[in-house]
């Protein structure tokens, strides 16, 4: 059986994210909040006119268990400096087990992104109930501060550079390696 066009053949288009200089760096934090707890807390924070870091852009999902690790990878690939996952406290998930699932994925995902050179502080998971607007504010402010300290996430090769990777022709950049050998004629194996 054959199927429809497959995204894995062509590289997905990437956003052209603008480069910010270090001084006026404002972190972009994508927040994935569950509908029944953390999103409600954000709502409460709003109606209570609380102020929290405006860097946090909230996306509502029905449950933290709905958060596919692909969402997180996608956010980082498209220019997020941090991703915050919020769900109901253990035992309180509207769908009973979704937050445990989120926790398991998060623990594995964080190992993976760290191995790919993304600092662990850039991915955070918090349990915040509907009444904890204050806690939401604390977490958002804290994360914005942490990421401001880390600086922007600069991926080595943003997707848009793939078709024209630069530097292929260059010799090895490290003087440590180039050092002596660069100076003399080198036999080609």
């Amino acid at each position, binding site marked *: *059986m*054959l*199927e*429809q*066009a*497959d*995204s*894995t*053949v*062509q*590289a*997905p288009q990437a956003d052209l994210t603008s480069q910010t200089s270090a001084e006026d760096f404002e972190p972009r934090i994508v927040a994935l909040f569950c509908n029944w707890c953390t999103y409600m807390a954000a709502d409460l924070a709003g109606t209570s006119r609380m102020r929290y870091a405006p860097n946090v852009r909230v996306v509502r999902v029905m449950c933290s268990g709905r958060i*596919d*690790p*692909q969402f*997180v*990878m*996608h956010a*980082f*690939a498209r220019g997020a400096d941090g991703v915050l996952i919020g769900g109901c406290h*253990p035992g309180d998930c509207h769908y009973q087990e979704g937050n*445990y*699932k989120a*926790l*398991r*994925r998060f*623990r*594995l*995902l964080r*190992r*993976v*992104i760290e*191995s*790919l*050179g*993304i600092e662990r502080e850039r991915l955070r998971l918090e349990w915040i109930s509907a009444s904890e607007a204050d806690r939401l504010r604390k977490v958002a402010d804290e994360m914005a501060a942490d990421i401001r300290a880390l600086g922007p*996430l*600069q*991926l*080595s*090769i943003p*997707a848009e550079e*793939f*078709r024209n*990777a630069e*530097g*292929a*022709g260059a*010799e*090895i*950049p*490290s003087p440590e*390696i180039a050092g*002596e*050998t660069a100076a003399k*004629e*080198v*036999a*080609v*194996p």
Partner: protein
Amino acid sequence: MTKPEGKPKVAFYWCASCGGCEEAVVDLAEGILDVVGAVDIVMWPVALDFKRADIEAMPDGSILASFINGAIRTTEQEEMASLLRRKSQLVIAFGACSQLGGIPGLANLYDREGVYRAAYLESPSTENPEGTLPRLRSRENGYDLSLPGFYDTVRALGQVIDVDYAIPGCAPHPKVIQAAVATLLSGELPPKGTVLAPDQAVCEECPRRESKPLDLSISEFKRPHEVIIDEETCLLAQGLLCLGPATRAGCDAACVCGNMPCSGCSGPTSRVLDHGAKAISGIASLIGGDDEEAIDSVLDGIPDPVGTFYRYGLPASLLRRKTLS
């Protein structure tokens, strides 16, 4: 599509690959003879002595289909891929390296310097007292010599040239190749971008699927060399990390039939953007334990998560490579 005169011309080419894909074509044995009789092979470095200049001399679009295996790692591979693209009506990414970056794509955990260091200076079997490294240009005995440039990052073929179809697998299963070739020859071409293999998970084809529990809770991951593997029961149920649920079918669950877990070589199905992330999603959900400590101790049984979940697809993943500071 214009019909070229005489038999349709077909090219095979290899880039950063191991030779397994060539082997897979040869393995078609008599199955390939009908196809070979029906086409004119204009390039196949592993078997025939055609040169780049022969291809350059052909009119653009005169090759019906080019099957290119291997990832793109050097400037020469990129040039050949672009040349074949220009000369061909269809380009097919053949095998995991070409489709997704493949095993060579794991070099994206390093850069050129790291790769050179490991390959030419530090590996235990290397003897290179002068620290000789590949260079773009050098002079030897009065001759000017040159080598292709070596990119920091390995790319899948579709990240370098326009690709029409992909044939998945490391190496592609003979059944998949035959079905794909039959589709291409049928004249009824599927939509561009189609991966020419069934759009369902390996589990669907797996003889052990009846024993796959609906609800699974894994308390310890076991590695194949550590246990005696039962030959009938679903491997996940035995605590072996099988990527069958997240991987595209077509191979008849070849590895599981050999009593080894699926390592994901056929990549994702069509609705998945990042094969590794999807596999992480599925596998992590099966972990037993509700608190961080218990979960982490199960996860310690996966010592190399990137090499496990992105074994065949790091370049085609959303993040594409490791970010080196």
